[in-house]
Each structure stands twice: as C-alpha cells, then as structure tokens.
C-alpha cells in the first residue's frame, strides 16, 4: 500500500478470508463422538467389526445422500428418495423380474429409480412445479405403487439370485462389498461435482439460475438431469437395501428423505442452493450414523436416545461455527 500505483489500493479488498478450513467443525464433532464412544464402550466401539458395521449402515442412505447433495446444490430438494428406493426394490424383486436373474434385477432397480427421478425433474423443470411439492407427490405415489406391486407383502430375493445378497455378505479386505459400492458412488459423485462441467454448472444453476441462463446453460435440462441423478442413486441404494435385507418392500426407506436432507445441510450445503460439498454431506451422515451406533452400544432407551440426539445435533451444529452458512 505504500507504492503510489492505483492498483495497489484496489488490491486490498480482494484478499479473501483466511483460515477457513472446510469441514473442521464436522470432523471435530466426529472426533468428539468417537471419544465418547471410546470412553463409554472401550471394548466395543473401536473394534474393526463395529467400524465396518457403521459403514455398512451408512452405505444405503449414503448413496442417496450423494444424489441429494447434487439436487440441493442445484437449488432443489427431493423428498421422494426413500419412496423411490422402495419402489425400485419392489420392482426389482417381483417374480417376473427375478426370473431374469440378478443382473436384470439390478438394471431394473437402477432404471426404475432413474425413471422416477426424471419424472420429478420433468415436473419441476417443464411443469414448473415447486420441487417440494413435485417430489412430495412422487413420494406418495411411489409408495402407493410399491404397495400395489408388492400386494403390501415383503418380497424375498430368491435363492437363484443370491448373488445380490452377496453384496452384503461377501467381504473383501474385511469390508462387505456394499461398502465399496458406497465408496465408489461417493468418489464418482465427487469427481462429477468438482471436475466436470456438469458439476460446476450445478453450482451455477443453484446459485444464480438467471446468470446460468444468461451464460447459455440450459437450466431446465440441467435441473431435470439432477433429479434423474438423484433417482439413479435411489436405484443403487435399492440394490444395497435388497442385499442387506434380502427383500424388496414398500416400507423400505421410510423417512430417509429427512435423514438425507439433514446430513446434507449439517454438511454445510445451503438449502437455498449454489453451495456445498459431497464430503461435508458424507461427514454429516457419518455423524448421524455414529450417534445411532453409540446409542446401540450403550443401550439407551428410546426416549433418552431421542432427547440426546436432539441435543447432540444442536451441539454439533453450534460447534461447526457456521461462518459460511449465515449471512449478516
């Protein structure tokens, strides 16, 4: 600022804030939970089998959370995820589908999920429906359809198709296959969001749709694809839940939408769109899963669990020192 050039004066304000390590609050919350785990149940918590169990539990909803992160960064919301997952699992386990073998079952789940997601996207982009309402309608309708297809019964994966169940039972390097599927989805999601034009445009579509439109981005098509992506994730999650429970059922994924949205928001993604990260969402989800795990290990009764969970959420968020989240 001592040089007399005009640019030097202009330079000062351009320097941004320093010391804003991302997700530091989330990691701190996780560490704190781990300490609580170690303190209360030293013999159980840090065992490898318990950690594997946490990851396996997180897998299904984790995959959904990846899709949800895209939708929310893109300025939308998807309430239908749990129901779409249920519908996919039911469709993939009907007798008709099962007769074609596991590959077709997986394909079926993924296609049904993607299809439902694209319908959401279409209603929102071209029907101009508010995302909350369009996906709520899908939630309701998909559950109804799933009940109808399954005759309100739980459909078992048949012996001939146990290849699917092996996703859950087969372990590689100590981890069940479904954890690898989860990891793969997270990795692909991260790459898609951070390293491709699709991902970067997602931020534009969510953060400033008018600017995105003026920059020549087809905002409607992009929005539609985002919901399709979320549906695709639900389809993959359906395969995982089939593996874990050996069934397809219209009751799968009840209230997953709330958990997934909560994980995404705790992870620092703005509900208004345009900001957020996959890693944050996954950390947010892990916090929820570890809380549940701690409760299981400590055998708390339901009421106390709920009260404790509410308090922990508040503390975790206040710890996160929401700098980036709030204005003013």
């Amino acid at each position, binding site marked *: *600022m001592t040089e*007399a050039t*005009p*640019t030097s*004066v*202009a*330079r*000062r*304000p*351009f320097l*941004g*804030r320093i010391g804003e390590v991302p997700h530091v609050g989330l990691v701190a919350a996780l560490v704190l939970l781990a300490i609580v785990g170690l303190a209360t149940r030293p013999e159980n918590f840090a065992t490898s089998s318990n950690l594997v169990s946490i990851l396996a539990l997180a897998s299904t909803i984790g995959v959904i959370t990846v899709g949800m992160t895209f939708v929310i*960064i893109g300025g939308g919301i998807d309430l239908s995820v749990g129901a779409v997952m249920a519908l996919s699992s039911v469709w993939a386990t009907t007798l008709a589908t099962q007769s074609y073998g596991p590959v077709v079952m997986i394909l079926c789940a993924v296609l049904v999920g993607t299809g439902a997601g694209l319908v959401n996207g279409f209603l929102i982009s071209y029907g101009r429906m508010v995302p909350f309402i369009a996906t709520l309608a899908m939630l309701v309708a998909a559950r109804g359809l799933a009940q109808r297809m399954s005759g309100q019964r739980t459909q078992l994966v048949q012996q001939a198709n146990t290849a699917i169940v092996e996703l859950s039972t087969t372990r590689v390097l100590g981890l069940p296959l479904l954890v690898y599927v989860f990891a793969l989805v997270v990795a692909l999601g991260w790459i898609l969001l951070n*390293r*491709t*034009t*699709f991902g*970067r*445009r997602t*931020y*534009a579509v*969510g*953060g*400033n749709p*008018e*600017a*995105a*439109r*003026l*920059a*020549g*981005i087809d905002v409607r098509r992009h929005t539609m694809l985002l919901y399709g992506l979320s549906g695709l994730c639900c389809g993959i999650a359906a395969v995982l839940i089939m593996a874990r429970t050996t069934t397809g059922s219209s009751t799968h994924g009840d209230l997953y939408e709330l958990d997934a949205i909560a994980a995404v928001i705790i992870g620092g993604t703005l509900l208004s769109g*345009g*900001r957020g990260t996959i890693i944050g969402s996954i950390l947010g989800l892990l916090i929820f899963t570890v809380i549940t795990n701690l409760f299981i290990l400590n055998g708390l009764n339901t009421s106390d669990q709920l009260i404790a969970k509410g308090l922990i959420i508040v503390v975790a968020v206040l710890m996160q020192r929401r700098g980036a989240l709030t204005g003013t």
Partner: protein
Amino acid sequence: MPASPPDTAPLLTMRGIVKRFPGVRALDGVDLEVRAGEVHCLLGQNGAGKSTLIKILAGAHQPDEGEVLLDGEPVRLATPTAAMRQGIATIYQELDLVDGLSVAENILLGHERASFGFTRRGESNRIAADLLRRLGHGEIPPGTEVGRLPPAAKQIVSMARALSHDARLIVMDEPSAALAHDEVANLFRIIREITAQGVAVVYISHRLEEIREIGDRITVLKDGRTVAVGLPATTPTGRVVSLMTGRDVEYVFPPRPAPSGERPEVLRVEGLTVPGVFSDVSFSVRAGEIVGLAGLVGSGRSEILEAVYGARRASGRVLLDGRAVPPGRTAASVRLGMGLAPEERKAQALLLDQSVTRNITLAGLGRYARAGWMDRRREAAEAARLVEALDIRPPDPRRPVKTLSGGNQQKAVLARWLVEPRRLLLLDEPTRGVDVGARAELYAVVRRLADEGVAVLLVSSEVPEVLGLADRVLVVREGRIVHEAPAVELDEHRVLDLVMVSTNEESHVD
C-alpha cells in the same frame, strides 16, 4: 478519435424494436446502429429501456416486434448462446456472477474448457489469469470463490467474462457504476484497446463526462423510443440532456445557503473503530449541514456509515443530539431519527416482490399504526405523495418495486427516509445508476432536507458530486480520515491526490 469511416456498413442494426411487459411497453420502436470499432453510447433516463434493449441484443429477451441485423444479415437471437455465437458479449447491469464458483469458472461459465465433460482446470485458470492481467487486475486469484470478492472486483470478473468470448460486439450496461475513479480510467484503457482491434462497444452510463471521454457516437432513448441516432459524442451536454429528459436540466447542484449562525450539532462521532476496516474516526455533523465522505472503493466509507447507523458493531462513541446511540441495534437508531440508504439497493434495501408503497413505508411502520394496527389509507396516501414528490416512474405505488428501473428503485429507497423530518440521513452512493434528470432532483431533495434542519452524511465515489453537494468534505483513506475541509476549498485533483496517497506530504498525516 474517429472510428471507422462513416460509409462502411454498420456491424449491428436494430430496427423498430418493441418489447412489452405486463402493463408496460418497455420498448416502443427503437432503432440502433453500431459500427465496427466504435464506442457507441446509449443514453436515456431511468426506465427509458436501455437495459431491456441490450437484453434483447444478448438473447435474454425476445422482442415482440422489430428486427436485428448483423453485417446486414437478419439474425434471430433466440437464446443467450445464439447471441454469443454471433459474437455478442454482454456485461449486465445487475451482477450476474455465481458466488459459489471460482473466478475462472465464472469467466468461462457456459463455454468451459473441457475434454469429455471434464474441466481442464489448469488451462481455465491460465486463461482467466491472462484476461485478468489484461484488465490490470492480475492480483485477483483465478481460484478464489467469487462470493468472497468485493463488488468492484466482481465487476472486473464480469468484464473478463465478456472479453473471454472473442466477441466482435461487447455491450456494457453501466459498468462504471460500481467502480471508483481510477478503476474507470483503467476500464477506458481496455475499451480503447479492444476497439482498436475493430471490436465495437455499446456503452451505457449515466455519467455524461464519461461519454464525452470515451464515446464516439450517441443514441438517446426516451420512454422506450429512439429520439436521436448516432449523434457525435461531441454534442453539447445541454442538448443531450434535453433530448433525454425532454426539458432543460442542468447538471448543477443546488446553491448552498449562507451559513446562518451556529447550528446545533446533530451527530458526533468519537474514536469509532472497527479493527481491520477503519480506526479512530471522529467527526461531527451539524443540523442543516451536508458532509461528504470522499475516498476510494475499499477505503471503508460504507463501513463508517454502517457503524454510525448502528448496523455494525464498533468501538468508540456515536452521539445523536447528545445521546449515545447503542451499537448493533438499528431499531434504536431509527427511533432516534437516523436513516440509511445503503449502497447495494437490491441486496440491502428493497423488498423486490413488494409494492413501492410497502417499500417506502418499511422503516416507519409505527407511524401508520395504532397499537400495531396498520392504518392503510394513511400509508397509501403518504406513499402516493412521496412517489409524486420524487417523480418515481411509473407513478403507481402499488406496482412491485422489482419492475421499476434501477434509478427509480433508488428513488424509492430514498423516499423511505423522507417520510418525516429526520435528524440524520446517511446516504451511501445515492445516485448510483440514477439518470441526470433524477440526479438533479435528488440533489435538490437532499438540499431541501438540509435546509429543513436535517443533518446529512454523504458517501459518493464521484468526486464532483461530493464537491458539488456537500458543505464540508472528509477524505477517507485506508480507514482513516486524512483531511477535512469545506467543499469550496477543494477541487477534484486535490481530492484525488488525497485519496490516493500520491504525495509524501500527506503520508505523515496518518
């Protein structure tokens, strides 16, 4: 400087453009002709239709009637992409950046450098860095999130984006509104550079002296119609203004009244400090006095206003009529008789979806209510009176404020603080984006308020405005008041010297 010879075919011709919005005819038969390599200025009052016209040119709006010709060929600009393909790049009046993306990503948004959908980040950053350097701002890191940049830097990024298109026609809608003096000079250097390469520039600004400096030809719009096409930029100001406004308005400031004895002190600020932004700011404003704060963008003037207003916590003391103003509580400040017209009207002042009336009465709801119960008739009457008094157009107080043009929105913000004799009015860039005619009206209004005994603290990046309107000027540099003098004792050069630390004589002051 003379542009291409007059006989060459125009690069762009727009003919008989009509654009209707619900309830308004924004454009009612506009013609425009731009030649390659020239700077073509578009002038007109607030709401004349300038932004609408260039949005049509950018493919963001579709005209209801009329045709657009490029190199004599009719073209259809159905989407922004179509316009860009034709070599038309636009810097919009409202910042159109995505806060969550980096500088480089914003610059290349929509035409990213990518292979198979994967962005080539190294290349993108390089391109962005090159463009920024060309704009004289190599210090903006291409990887920073745009949301962290101050408004002036955002404006630079917008410009870099327009340049990234290799356009043959660049449209700039009030690019200088958010820029300080030195930045404008820099902008002009770039404009000269690109026009020398044969690129045409359509330039919109309400600052007539800029037009004179950079423009080649002028087209004037009034109420959605062209009233003059392709005048030389040397046309006398008076004539231009009367074309725009339909009457003779001088770009003049209302006369200062003769000092009438010792007037009571309204505002006293003592040792006001916000660490890292400004420090130890002390001054006072008397009743009926207009005090101007001059300084560069980023010197901390807005922050001083906000701290005085109580919208920002600061150490030090603020006294209004001898009473301490509690920090961080705007409600108390408003009750004590302060009003702030902030610098970014859309983000900080307006409820865009709401009516003009509701925007005007927002700060004084209690005045139209008994025990919390609104007297809507009185409210409407008051709003209608203010709309008329400030000549807000269209004069319909029930219209959503977002459908007003920028300058008229600014008037609505000012109107909010005119509802009652006030003690202190804090004006931050009150004429940003306001047309010449309206400016003169605003100056008159401010002076009239002062004459009625209101104290006024004014921030403006336009030095002539500070010198012309204020009674006394405080020069702010890097968060400190470095000089204080009656406005009549200063001139533009002297102020610029002071704000830019170009003389050693001043550097020992702080």
